[in-house]
């Protein structure tokens, strides 16, 4: 593992320059067959920060997110152009194993999708795949604690993950992602199926775990991006319906003092 060398305390300050990107996108375009869903996307994902991708429906936010851990490989007839670098290594190089990529870059989905297994087995799923040798009970507990759900489930670890409420299910899915010890966690509209209270819990959780993980979140909820993220990337689509970056920057600046008129219109709710 080649950790970026320039990582230091200063980079954690809001407003500090992007010294240590974990992931860098360079002119990324993505195609479903002949249709180009996103075009020429370039941005950096700084380490231990929360990066939000916002934009109107259908602009390719989720598609873009799913290229980062190669989930789109599963859809036949799709194609990536450009480079996605993970610690300077091209994720789409022929020698890269997409399965290994997904272990290092975890994902939480729009709709909570716990497996039809016990709460314990849900969290232990990833480690078991990796042939985890060690204190599995301890790892499960630690993951559930980090996902801020331990106290709610510690007495019913053998119960089905599906018996939990929606918000709990999503935190279980976060615990499940954490258990494989990823560096980056991608979240694809993780709160869109949750009520406001559960949403707030997830946002607090994100703020807590960003010390350990780098988070990229796609959200259609601008308040969420404003509340929960450090950096914001605003995608929009032009007449070709391909999403592209309109503006990116520190979240505070994006929401209070955007450089582009289009960004201002979007964050103030005038379209989208």
């Amino acid at each position, binding site marked *: 593992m080649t950790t970026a060398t320039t990582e230091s305390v200063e980079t954690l300050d809001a407003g500090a320059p992007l010294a240590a990107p974990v992931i860098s996108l360079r002119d990324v375009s993505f195609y479903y067959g002949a249709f180009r869903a996103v075009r020429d996307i370039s941005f950096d994902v700084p380490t231990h920060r929360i990066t939000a991708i916002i934009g109107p429906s259908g602009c390719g936010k989720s598609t873009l997110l799913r290229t980062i*851990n190669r*989930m789109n490989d*599963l859809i*036949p007839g799709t194609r990536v152009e450009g480079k996605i670098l993970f610690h300077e290594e091209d994720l789409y190089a022929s020698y890269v194993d997409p*399965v*290994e*990529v*997904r*272990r*290092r870059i*975890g*994902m939480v*989905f729009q*709709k909570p*999708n*716990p*497996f*039809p*297994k016990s709460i314990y087995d849900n969290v232990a*799923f*990833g480690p078991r*795949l*990796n042939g985890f040798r060690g204190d599995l009970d301890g790892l499960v507990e630690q993951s559930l604690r980090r996902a801020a759900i331990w106290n709610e489930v510690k007495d019913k670890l053998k119960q*089905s993950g*599906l018996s939990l409420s929606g918000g709990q299910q999503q935190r279980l*899915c976060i615990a*499940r*992602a954490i258990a*494989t010890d990823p560096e980056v966690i991608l979240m694809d509209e993780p709160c869109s199926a949750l009520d406001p209270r559960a949403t707030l819990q997830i946002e607090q959780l994100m703020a807590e775990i960003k010390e350990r993980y780098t988070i990229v979140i796609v959200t259609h909820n601008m308040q969420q991006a404003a509340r929960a993220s450090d950096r914001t990337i605003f995608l929009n689509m032009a007449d070709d319906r391909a999403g592209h970056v309109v503006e990116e920057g520190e979240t505070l600046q994006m929401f209070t003092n955007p450089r582009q008129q289009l960004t201002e219109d979007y964050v103030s709710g005038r379209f989208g």
Partner: protein
Amino acid sequence: MSASTTSINAGGRSVRRQGRDVRGLVFAGALLLALLFSLAVLAVLVGTQLAQGLPVFAERGLDFLTSDLSSNPADAGVAQGIVGTALLMVIVALVAFPVGIMTAIYLEEYSGDNRLARFIEINVRNLAGVPSVVYGILGLTVFVGLFAALGDSNGKTIVTGGLTLAVLVLPLVIITSAEAIRAVPEALIEGGFGLGASRWQVVRELILPAAAPGILTGTVLALSRAIGETAPLILVGAVLGSFSTGGSIGDLAGGPYTALPMIVFDWARKPQQDFRALTSAAIIVLLALTLVANAFAVILRNRFDRKW
């Protein structure tokens, strides 16, 4: 437009029922009639067989189940048929289930969504509709020929019969398994891949457990169909009429064999009146076997389902 701004009663329209929904009632009645018709046919069928067949059991008890075939109605029993049918089922299960389920997994999860895969799937569906007698001819030319060439006296053994039935139900197993696999929610599969599971791990840990109840239902349907088949067995050499069976496994595998539907077919053609009752009794045994197989599947499926 103006009506929408006033109360619904103001325009003279009341919420009270305005006459009866005659067409709706007629439709519901027709549905009920269709249901009753099917039930009546089934009831008559089972009723007459029970009426004719049960006296045989009352008179001879277990003797009917443990006796060999005979031209004398008073001695004739279905033991050889039960053994034959049971062995055929074992062969079908051993051959058709693994091959069929693996084919389904390949078609759904590995082949990708290309023209060839779709072409194959359509043809598998067509195969499921091919009359069983055609499979009999297939079994005769392929399996009987193959085993005869390999030096097995004439190749007409229970193994060739079982293989023929296995090929016959294979499309059914493939189709139902493929449908069960396709019904596994995409979110579940993505969740697995998102955690860094390989395709094989996703299939083994998530898809197969989730599809198991559906696959099981399909395999039992296939087995039930195989239990009742007569035509292909006639072609690949199951015996009509009585024969003597050796006791050992080798004799069973290499010697003459028969199956319950063959016995039913044979006895039903016999001129003696006494065989009428025996035919019905054999049918009852056949139905009972089918019911047992189905019940077994339901229990298994509930166990899979109940887990979560």
